């Protein structure tokens, strides 16, 4: 573009500037109410919560369109859902996107929570943000629970019936309140109508109120600092509009495209309608995000002691998470300084993965006490041991030496790969340890059969793979001999080549 071009276009540019100015005066876009964000937060990990809200918006759009056609009565629920599938323009697409985005919302909220846990955002002064966030997590699970019933299929009604009876086993006061909220006077049509109203009005309203509270607190405190500190360049503030908004739109667009592609690759078909005869042939199983609760309840110790005991355990886990900021009162935030809580966090994720997978493959089967103790205890010990080992290797030698400046990108890349590999190993490790122990116990109890032996062999092979992967990872991390870290350290921090660590 030359100077001549500019004079030729300057008339339209003036008009453009005036148009922008018109909006700016009225919307205050150049001087927004929301505080600017630091450069280091332009990173997907900081926006997991925002992506969960994006998922919620997608749910709202698809849900409201479907709401025009769905009828919440037991006789018409299934046929109206079928109608949406077959006759409404883009109906099948709406249903599929709605389901997968629901799963994405739950998964994103969980990742958001665990990410916050691991970088210690819940320390002072953000404790109440954590509590609000946990409540929002419960509401999200409530969305899943209430929405699951609405199509009135064999799968969903059976699972929800079990869920409702489990709620009835809570302590009397709470059980009565929740039962009244959910079931009302009793009977299928009241329950369905209640679930529907909860799903489309009460839960969204509660979620929005909690979201407003969380956003308010976010504005008060700002984005939390990265654990390792940040350089001046990274602390530079970026205005919310248009830069941070544009970044959010970018992430949201990629998320939307991802959901669309997943909906294409895994199209849904409606399970058969709920009839009592069909339900009798079917073993109920909850949706995947409740499989871990399901698995805990199936342990025989809880079967004999009664449902309230099992529920107390699950409730205790939830309560611990809610009041976590008041349990973990230390001031330290760096990974190096929190070995206990980091290990506990990793164990929690590993156990969750193992329980979910285990629940998936053993529908309706009671788990013996020994098996449960061995599998869950085994995973806990293995993962805690592994984490402590890695933590020691990583930080014992480094704690005194690592400066507080921001690491360079090649170190960052190495760390990113290491983190990904570690997460994968934890998940796979939990599953393979669990299945190995499970197969062992099964052989011990039921004797050696071909099926048992095969299961043991496969899981041991998987476990071997995980162990090899862990050894490789530890080798990479060992500062004395690991190639990537050592090279980066030499280059970045100017360490002496001959220095032994």
């Amino acid at each position, binding site marked *: 573009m030359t100077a001549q071009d500019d004079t030729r276009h300057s008339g339209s540019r003036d008009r453009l500037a005036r148009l922008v100015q018109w909006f700016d005066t009225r919307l205050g876009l150049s001087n927004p109410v929301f505080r600017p964000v630091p450069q280091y937060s332009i990173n997907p990990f900081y926006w997991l919560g925002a992506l969960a809200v994006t998922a919620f918006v997608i749910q709202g759009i698809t849900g409201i369109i479907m709401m025009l056609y769905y009828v919440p009565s037991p006789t018409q629920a299934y046929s109206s859902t079928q109608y949406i599938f077959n006759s409404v323009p883009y109906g099948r697409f709406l249903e599929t996107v709605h389901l997968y985005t629901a799963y994405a919302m739950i998964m994103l909220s969980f990742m958001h929570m665990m990410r916050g846990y691991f970088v210690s955002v819940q320390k002072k002064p953000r404790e109440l943000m954590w509590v609000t966030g946990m409540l929002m997590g419960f509401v999200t699970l409530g969305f899943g629970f209430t929405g699951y019933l609405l199509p009135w299929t064999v799968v969903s009604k059976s699972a929800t019936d079990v869920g409702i009876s489990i709620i009835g086993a809570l302590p009397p006061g709470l059980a009565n309140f929740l039962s009244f909220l959910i079931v009302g006077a009793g009977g299928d049509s009241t329950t369905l109508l209640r679930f529907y109203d909860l799903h489309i009005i009460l839960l969204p309203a509660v979620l929005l109120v909690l979201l407003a509270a969380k956003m308010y607190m976010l504005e008060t405190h700002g984005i939390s600092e990265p654990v390792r500190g940040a350089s001046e360049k990274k602390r530079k503030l970026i205005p919310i509009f248009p830069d941070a908004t544009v970044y959010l739109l970018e992430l949201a667009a990629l998320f939307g495209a991802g959901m669309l592609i997943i909906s294409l690759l895994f199209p849904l078909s409606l399970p*058969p309608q709920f009839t009592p005869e069909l339900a009798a042939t079917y073993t109920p199983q909850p949706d995947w995000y409740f499989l871990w609760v399901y698995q805990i309840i199936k342990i025989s110790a809880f079967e004999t002691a009664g449902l309230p005991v099992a529920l107390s355990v699950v409730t205790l886990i939830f309560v611990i998470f809610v009041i976590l900021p008041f349990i973990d009162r230390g001031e330290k935030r760096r990974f190096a300084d929190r070995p206990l809580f980091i290990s506990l966090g990793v164990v929690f994720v590993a156990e969750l993965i193992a329980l979910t997978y285990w629940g998936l493959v053993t529908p309706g089967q009671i788990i013996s006490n020994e098996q449960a103790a061995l599998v869950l205890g085994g995973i806990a010990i293995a993962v805690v041991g592994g984490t402590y080992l890695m933590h020691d290797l990583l930080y014992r030698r480094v704690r005194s030496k690592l400066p507080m400046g921001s690491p360079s990108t090649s170190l960052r890349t190495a760390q990113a790969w290491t983190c990904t590999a570690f997460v994968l190993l934890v998940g796979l490790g939990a599953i393979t340890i669990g299945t190995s122990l499970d197969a062992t116990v099964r052989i011990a109890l039921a004797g050696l059969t071909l099926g048992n032996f095969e299961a043991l062999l496969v899981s041991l092979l998987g476990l071997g793979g995980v162990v090899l992967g862990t050894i490789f990872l530890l080798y990479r991390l060992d500062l004395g001999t690991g190639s990537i870290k050592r090279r980066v350290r030499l280059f970045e921090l100017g360490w002496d080549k001959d220095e032994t660590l």
Partner: protein
Amino acid sequence: MTPSKDTEKTKPDEDEEVDTSRRDFLKIAMTLSAVMAFGGIGTVLKSISNPAPPGASNPTTFPRVQVSNTNIPINSPVYFNYPLDSEPNFLVKLGQKAAGGIGPNQDIVAFSQICQHLGCISISYQATGGSTGGPVAKCSCHGSVFDMLQSAKVVGGPSPRPLPQVQLDVDASGNIFAKGMGPPTIYFHNTGSNDVSADLQGGNPVS
């Protein structure tokens, strides 16, 4: 220091004029892009057009239409659309008794021509194409093979379900009528379900 991998740094452009116009260009481009992205999303609102409300004029009964006659030659397929006017089927006289067959020798059968694997409309009848020389229908897309004597049961290839069988009727003068569809549903009509009323949705029934 090795350069950061996120963005490669260049010197800020010295020429102010060019810089501003590039900025404006990018801003306009961004806005247009956002408008089109949101517009694209907005087209989902087509769902709120007014198709027939449920239960009103949705056909729930299969039409009964004449498609052929019993005096057709053996192994010579007849093609017809049923139950929607966009969905092909084929009818063939096998010359031997088959499951679901009608006619004096119970050997006339008809099936959907849309493969249950991925919806290819390339099912062709082969009189002796089966592994034991029997009549089969083969899909040329990915090689699914359906046994004509056993209600299009899958005997080869990747199809997970048999072909939907057209229910036929014959009157006194040998005219053959199509009067319904057996499960599974025709591909794309709630694929995988056994509720054949879904076959009537989404198009114009033949008459």
